[in-house]
């Protein structure tokens, strides 16, 4: 009896390891859950000329506590084609950028993984080093490069390849260049991490059994680096969908992304509720690939 009680007490007493578990949860609650709940709350209100510029959700009038949830903001998102077009265009831009990152990042990660350990560290450093400069400054630098009078155009004209400056800045192409440039390290690092662990003997065995280099790559290297490919694609795709700064600075007026729509709802229309609804739907949209990723991982773990 006494033993049981003590055991029960021990189970409910604070234990040191709880602190370790609590830290990430506390972080998650403080910096994700609470802000998200505030956004969610605002998305159910109506805009008003007041401080803050929306109506309260809970009101206490005549001894009655009334909860008023305004669904109009969400209905608008689905009935107005502007939002659907912007969401789709964001996903498209993010998907193409991710693919480009993969095409550029895979060979880079592969060759870094095949280097000798010393040069490998230098190469990795070179991948990470640009991130030490502010992101904003790096995007600004691209304006100087792609400009009509910029470095690229002057170089090409100096070489006699073109006679008129190319209009790259303020076109979707510039937005792709900016996004691929900024997110490339996020693709290379996870790819490198999986490729560097690759057992070379497997490839040798494949060659011994008569595989051609391409065959060996597709049947050995590629499947074994899938985890890195998926991690890299997630890391690029998810932030790219919500990207605002790069398309805004480089992309020109016809690069419509959901971040821009959110901005104009919030700042131009002063419609915080509609902006919150856009943000909530965006979050749900981003959750889908994460859930797929998790499922995939679980299936892999079960398979082993």
């Amino acid at each position, binding site marked *: 009896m006494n033993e049981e009680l003590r055991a029960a007490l021990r189970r409910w007493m604070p234990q040191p390891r709880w602190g370790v578990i609590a830290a990430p949860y506390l972080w998650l609650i403080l910096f994700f859950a609470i802000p998200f709940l505030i956004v969610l709350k605002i998305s159910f209100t109506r*805009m008003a*000329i*007041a*401080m*803050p*510029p929306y109506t309260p959700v809970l009101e206490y009038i005549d001894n009655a506590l009334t909860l008023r949830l305004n669904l109009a903001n969400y209905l608008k998102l689905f009935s107005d084609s*502007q939002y659907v*077009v912007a969401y789709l265009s964001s996903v498209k831009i993010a998907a193409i950028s991710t693919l480009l990152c993969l095409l550029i990042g895979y060979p880079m990660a592969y060759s870094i993984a095949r280097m000798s350990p010393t040069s490998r560290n230098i190469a990795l450093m070179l991948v*990470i080093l640009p*991130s*030490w400069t*502010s*992101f*904003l*400054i790096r995007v600004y630098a691209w304006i100087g490069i792609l*400009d*009509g*009078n910029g470095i690229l155009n002057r170089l090409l004209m100096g070489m006699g390849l073109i006679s008129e400056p190319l*209009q790259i800045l*303020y076109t979707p192409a510039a937005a792709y260049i900016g996004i691929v440039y900024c997110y490339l*390290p*996020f693709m290379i*690092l*996870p790819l*490198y*991490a*999986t490729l560097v*662990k690759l057992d070379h003997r497997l490839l040798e065995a494949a060659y011994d059994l008569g595989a051609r280099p391409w065959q060996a790559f597709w049947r050995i290297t590629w499947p*074994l680096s899938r*985890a*890195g490919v998926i*991690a*890299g694609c997630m*890391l690029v795709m998810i*932030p790219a969908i919500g990207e605002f700064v790069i398309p805004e600075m480089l992309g*020109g*007026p*016809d690069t*419509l992304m959901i971040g821009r*729509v959110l901005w*104009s*709802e*919030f*700042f*131009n*229309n*002063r*419609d915080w509720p509609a902006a919150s609804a856009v943000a909530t739907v965006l979050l749900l949209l981003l959750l889908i690939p994460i859930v797929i990723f998790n499922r995939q*991982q679980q299936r*892999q*773990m079960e398979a*082993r």
Partner: protein
Amino acid sequence: MKSQSAAVVLSLCALLLAACGSKDKDAAAPAGAAAPAAAPASKTLNVYNYSDYIAEDVIPGFEAKSGVKVTYDVYDSDEVVEAKLLAGSTGYDIVVPTLNFFGRQIQAGVFLKLDKAKIPNLANLDPAVMQRIAQQDPGNQYGVPYMSGTTGIGYNVDKVKKAFGNLDVVNSWDLVFKPENISKLKSCGVTLLDTPSDLIPIALHYLGENPNSTDPKVIDKAAALLKSIRPYIQNFHSSQLVGALANGNTCLVVAWSGDVIQARDRAEEAKNGVNIGYSIPKEGAPQWFDMLAIPKDAKNVDNAYAFINHLLDPKVAAANTNYIHYANPVPSSLPDVAEDIRNDTTIYPPAEVAAKLFTYSVLPAEVDRQYTRIWTELKTGK
């Protein structure tokens, strides 16, 4: 599994790097946002104003005179200030919104009613200007004008001359709104302000409609007009156009007067051979006022009054105008304003031009929404 966990660790490193990158951006955020606690007789003042919008010696002069330490932060769009004001507790004691934004913010209850006895220099203000402002701030209770300017046409003198033979075209909005004209400048670049609240009223005024119309059908006429010239517009941007015009990357802009004049001066300094002009078209153009106002939750109210009073001093107002090239509303400052600025008809428009200028008014939320909608469709070409 090992490879995967390594992938996760490295990914986390990458995310941390990204976080470092964004930290730099945060550092650029207003340092004065966390206002010092109110002391009985505080010696601090937090001012939030447009960038490049005050003469260099004005703040040191005020600090020396009053012993108050000024924290001066800057922004580049009314929208950003408004979002902060509406969220509350900005920590700022003085903000400088544009009149039409200011009007709506009064309705939202953002500002403190001014104690006019504490601003003796109010007597220096131009009564005609105060009367125009009273349309949005009845009785001039909440704000004091700081500077005023116009939204007009900025152009690259040589490029326009090359395309048209002379400069007569810049005196009319026809240059912007007639496809046969603007198409001639497409190759050298056309940039418009990225603000529907400037461009739609201008288009309405050009069509002979009320620029502040709230009739959706009338506003759609402006949308159709803007759509007809969309193929010739390279970009929409409110702050990059100064640099683009000065570098010769764009040859025609619709922009705020002071920005174009700034671009002109920058090009002159750079000696890059780019000549820039500004014109207020003969059909008339928007005139706007930027208003000094004190948020309700300001902590250093007395210092704010003292600073506003300082800015209305004729000598100080003249110094500001000489530096930023916008017209101040203090007529007695004119003798101290540099002659070339005083006689510049684009800064101090003559009476017959001034008569055709119009002001923006506060628009209902549905109209704002229609504006934004038109703008998104216009920019994306849908």
